[in-house]
């Protein structure tokens, strides 16, 4: 974790929204303003647990015009790797956490004339920050929000008050279901649709929109499924005989550098080609955009800044 990567924050407030959802207010530890962000952004929250660190992405739900604090809402997942349970069970007001600078993979199209936001459950969070922008810019928009039970969400009153007729609610336990096909069919040409929520909802919205002839550029989806972190493996350096362990969230490049090696590298993102390394034995799980498909299939080279071993050990020509 490099310095630019992490901003220390203090948990200033925790609100229990429902048995499953808590909202955390995070203030900068150093008092300075937090980085500005755009609606739909998320931060990666690092929590220092007793046995391991959790690093999970969470959408910023507070106003993008507010820089004294960030807010996130977290749904407890009981069968996950434990990050959300840690936030629910172990984090107290006054604790320190770290957040990355905000990143946005779910931005509003600033040239869009009309925006339809479709949220399912906890998938409402990125829309909460986008709604501040849509309102401030006087945009044409509508929110469609589906959830199981009204008791499980604290955002209803606020959404109804702030967005009036633009906000539509669907409580499935009351027999109200959101029908993506109907919502999409009513939209004028050129509308942008944004969906965030359970996989099933996302799939339905995307498939429906495609079938109705919407261009891919007007369909935006964010899934809360973080990319699975990799399996640990061992790198063997052929020339020195060194054996190094690469953990689930490490890269080979980081591990080499941490152990005093200085391999060639530049972009650290799998595009420049500088870190190309010959593989003597082992299978590679390629994540780069540099090597050709042919070379990738041969498992003869790897880009150590992003790619991992698919086998338990990999011997590199280093």
């Amino acid at each position, binding site marked *: 974790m490099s310095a*630019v*990567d992490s901003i220390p924050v203090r948990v200033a407030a925790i609100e229990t929204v429902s048995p499953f959802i808590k909202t955390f207010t995070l203030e900068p530890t150093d008092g300075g303003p937090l*980085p*500005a*962000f*755009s609606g739909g*952004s998320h931060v990666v929250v690092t929590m220092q647990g007793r046995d391991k660190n959790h690093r999970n992405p969470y959408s910023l739900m507070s106003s*993008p015009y507010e820089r004294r604090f960030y807010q996130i809402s977290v749904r407890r997942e009981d069968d996950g790797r434990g990050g959300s349970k840690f936030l629910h069970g172990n984090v107290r007001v006054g604790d320190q956490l770290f957040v*990355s*600078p*905000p*990143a*946005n993979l779910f*931005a509003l*199209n*600033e*040239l869009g004339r009309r925006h339809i936001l479709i949220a399912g459950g906890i998938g409402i969070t990125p829309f909460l920050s986008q709604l501040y922008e849509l309102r401030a810019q006087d945009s044409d928009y509508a929110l469609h929000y589906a959830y199981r039970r009204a008791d499980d969400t604290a955002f209803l009153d606020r959404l109804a008050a702030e967005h009036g007729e633009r906000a539509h609610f669907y409580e499935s336990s009351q027999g109200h279901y959101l029908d993506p096909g109907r919502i999409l069919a009513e939209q004028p040409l050129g509308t942008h649709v944004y969906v965030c929520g359970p996989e099933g909802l996302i799939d339905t919205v995307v498939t429906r929109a495609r079938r109705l002839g919407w261009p891919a*550029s007007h369909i935006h989806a964010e899934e809360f499924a973080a990319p699975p972190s990799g399996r640990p493996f061992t790198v063997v350096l052929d020339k020195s005989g060194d054996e190094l362990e690469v953990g689930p969230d490490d890269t080979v490049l980081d591990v080499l550098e941490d152990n005093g090696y200085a391999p060639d590298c*530049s*972009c*650290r*993102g799998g*595009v*420049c*080609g500088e870190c190309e390394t010959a593989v003597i034995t082992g299978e590679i799980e390629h994540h780069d*955009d*540099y090597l050709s498909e042919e070379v990738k299939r041969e498992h003869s080279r790897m880009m150590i800044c992003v790619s991992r071993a698919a086998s338990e050990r990999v011997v590199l020509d280093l």
Partner: protein
Amino acid sequence: MSEQATVAAPRVKPVETFRGDFTYSNSPEAIRRFPFPFHRDDYMYSVNIEPHDGTPPGSAYAPAFDIDEHYLSEMAERRTVLEEDPKRCQVLPYMMEAQWDTLELMMTSLAADYPEHFSLTRDGDTWTWENRLLDIRDTFTFKDADTLPLEPFEYITRQVQGDFTLHGQRNDMLYMDGGMVTCQADWSLDFDLGMNFYEWHGPVPRAHEMGVFERALKYLLTLKVGSPVRRLNWTMTVNPRMDTSPENYDKWGIDRATITPDNVGELAHLRVELQSLWRLPRSNAILFSIRCYLISMEELATVPKWARRFHRVLRDLPEDLADYKGFIGFRPTVLDYLARHDDGAATSPGGAPD
């Protein structure tokens, strides 16, 4: 990158000229810190991107935006160009957030990197900006454009060396949505405005087929706030002329025919662009900074390693690249000059002087 005192306070020269009598030159210190772009004895296009992370300390790469001894000259040149041609600064209307993002990024970076020259005092939305080099002191309301004498992007980029462009990100693509472009290597903001990443790179030979732009774009789309990146680009220019724009081609195109064996050391310049790319937080747009450095062959030859290496790079550069970069005509004369400084000795890795 800013708190650490990695940046030497620059001594700033009085105004020199980039046109007419061309009084511009580099001091010995400016030569030592010149961002010589060749790490090896040959050159080909690649996705040469690396983190812009404040390293190496003391170098031209360390500051967020490098301010050097030519500051006053370059700001005076920018004013002259804009007077003749206001279209060198244009920003599309929906980029207002990106304009303020740029202003904030530049003001906070300059104040942190060069506290003796710039300061920013923030009291809520009331900001006071002081630029002691240009004798500017303005108090304004952040996000209220009426409280500044110019639109925020033009206001701040008239005070920072280098060209700057703004790029909205839509549909997994970057667009040329604005810029301040007065010291460019033969491309036009007015012409490129509204184009996408592939379109404005249209004239570049080879790189499209090599997949360079596809990979570069993919990388840029995931650029993160707080983790800027940089790359170097280079060409050659006759005379220390900043404004080699297509708009003024009639003024500089003919310079290329004036190079002779007698004047080549003084007239031929290596032109290096230190380009940095920044994700802007509020707008989610990208700011592209193109900081131009010029060094004459005479000045370059004061660093033996650079003269040797540049001789080899230039000699072996493929014809199509030399043609595109615009120096194929006078390359032989430059090569004759540099050959005298190349004894065939091996050069050390990396771009820094020995």
